[in-house]
């Protein structure tokens, strides 16, 4: 099942499947090691169309809503 990071439920882990953006978008995300094949954990979505917060490795990252909608992930089944 493929969904966007924005739609992923808070607290769930998922693997990044696809980044729907250009070269610059990809590079920007790669700076925090957010790349295809990496596993992330979504922590929360902030209210009022706020950003999404994820955990990747030992870092947390704040990602704007529109960007989060361009990150396609596959949720991990059980934890």
């Amino acid at each position, binding site marked *: 099942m493929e969904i966007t990071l924005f739609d992923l439920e808070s607290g769930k882990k998922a693997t990044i499947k696809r980044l729907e953006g250009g070269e610059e978008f990809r590079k920007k995300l790669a*700076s925090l090691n957010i790349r295809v094949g990496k596993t992330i954990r979504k922590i929360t979505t902030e*209210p009022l169309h706020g*950003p999404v917060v994820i955990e990747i490795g030992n870092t947390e*990252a704040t*990602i*704007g809503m529109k*960007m989060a909608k361009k990150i396609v992930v596959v949720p991990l089944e059980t934890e």
Partner: protein
Amino acid sequence: MKILLMGNPNVGKSAIFSRLTGVDVMISNYPGTTIELKKGKMKLDDQMVEVIDVPGTYSLEPTSKAEEVAVNMLKEGDLVINVVDATNMERNLNLTLQLLERNIPVIAVLNFWDETRHLGIQIDIKKLETHLDIPVVPAVAVTGEGIKELVSRLHESKAHTNIHDEDSRWSEIGKIIKGVQKVTLKKHTFLENLEDLSIKPLTGIPITLLILALVFWTVRFTGENLIAYLFDPLFEFYLPMVTDLSNALGKSGVVHDILVGTLIEGKIDYIQSMGLLTTGLYVPLAMVLPYVFAFYLVLGILEDSGYLPRLATLIDAVLHKLGMHGLAIIPMLLGLGCNVPGALSTRILETRKQRFIAATLMAIAVPCMAQTAMVFILLGPYGIKGFGIYFITLFIVWLTLGFLLNKMLKGETPETFMEIPPYRVPYFGSLAKKLWMRMRSFLSEAVPFVLLGVLIINILYVFGIIEWISEAAAPVIVGILGLPKEAVASLIVGFLRKDVAVGMLLPLGLDMGQLIVASVVLTMYFPCVATFVVLFKELGARDLIKATAIMVVSTLLVGGVLNALL
């Protein structure tokens, strides 16, 4: 020889810089603390070499202006100390491998070495050295652990001209990580649980409100008690000396009035006398300094803990509606201390539009601690109602003006994308050092300006210039703002120092409404001269004129409305 300190944001470059050169620099736990190149010198083999603290960059293919600065520095350097966050080695190595393509000698420092243990991360340093073919030194920058080894091994650093494209670089990193790092899962610690709790809106917003209340209360409590039990007694002790001086000078005359001031009912009044040796010292030292000290103590703890990027995330959506993003909370908070560092820190925002809005809003609606301290004293007798109206008015101005500016100004506000560092227990040594640096700059900047302000106001009175301006400005001051025309003297001093200006309102016998109007007007109408100079450098002449026009118009509007309401 030039040594460059390079690495991702928030990996401790400045802490290492400070250790190497002995130069005091600001260190905080959020990405982007260092906004400009810092240079220092260190002794290496009986020779002085230059060390440069380069702002953090994730890559040598820059995606922002700050990163461009970092990359351009590379051409000038002779050696790179690559600071690597040992707890986030994978993404940090991306920059390391890029540096190893540039034919410049590199040595790597694995900072936060102490934290790897708590996180269950094991790194084989020897193997890592073999993989990268450069020396690798584990370190804990804030305590100085590993710095000696770093210095002694600088000459072992090696240049490489590896060739990689992006994909092969990442697969190389994957191989290295597999070979040198082992991670055993550890149970979540208290701080890690707090990280989640303070960023989820349901728990994060109450935590934020609690912290804000605690900050406000701590600053007031600490400030008030420092004044009552330390600074007022000190000035009581000093009083007989200035009284002797006053008597020796014959209790009046130009020299007496400039040094001691006017006697109020035959006595020296530290607030009203307006002499260089009375009010000129009492205002900055006994009224303002205690609050500034308390504020910077609390701010330092907030900065070093790692809370600020979380606050920025929580309120990101709101700040986007004002044309900025979450990180704009940092210039606002620094501005609450002093507008000068506040204006400088607008550089962490990427676009011109964001920087303009942040700088303008800060200059108009964020009172510095010197001013807030005086407002506490002025409106304190009226309790929460007095300064409550003052702060709420400024907050509404901040929101409304930001909303309007965002609608009116052209330009994009890019989406937020930032790293949130882990919570760290503030390290006492760097906390104390930062507090000292800030107090030192307060004393060296505030005291001379206060004295200058007091001197100028005395000269203007002597030559009758104040009366002349009062008459000319009366229609605005009396007509629109409902203040006595004598208040104009305070507005003139406000260009130099807002704290002295607020103090000058005391003898005018204003009622609560007038005091609030005057305090709000003094905050909004113009930044103090020190802030003005920095804004000129940061915004340029054209934008500064724009910002100033906005200030004047909104001051008259808000002052007029408040006058009608109160």
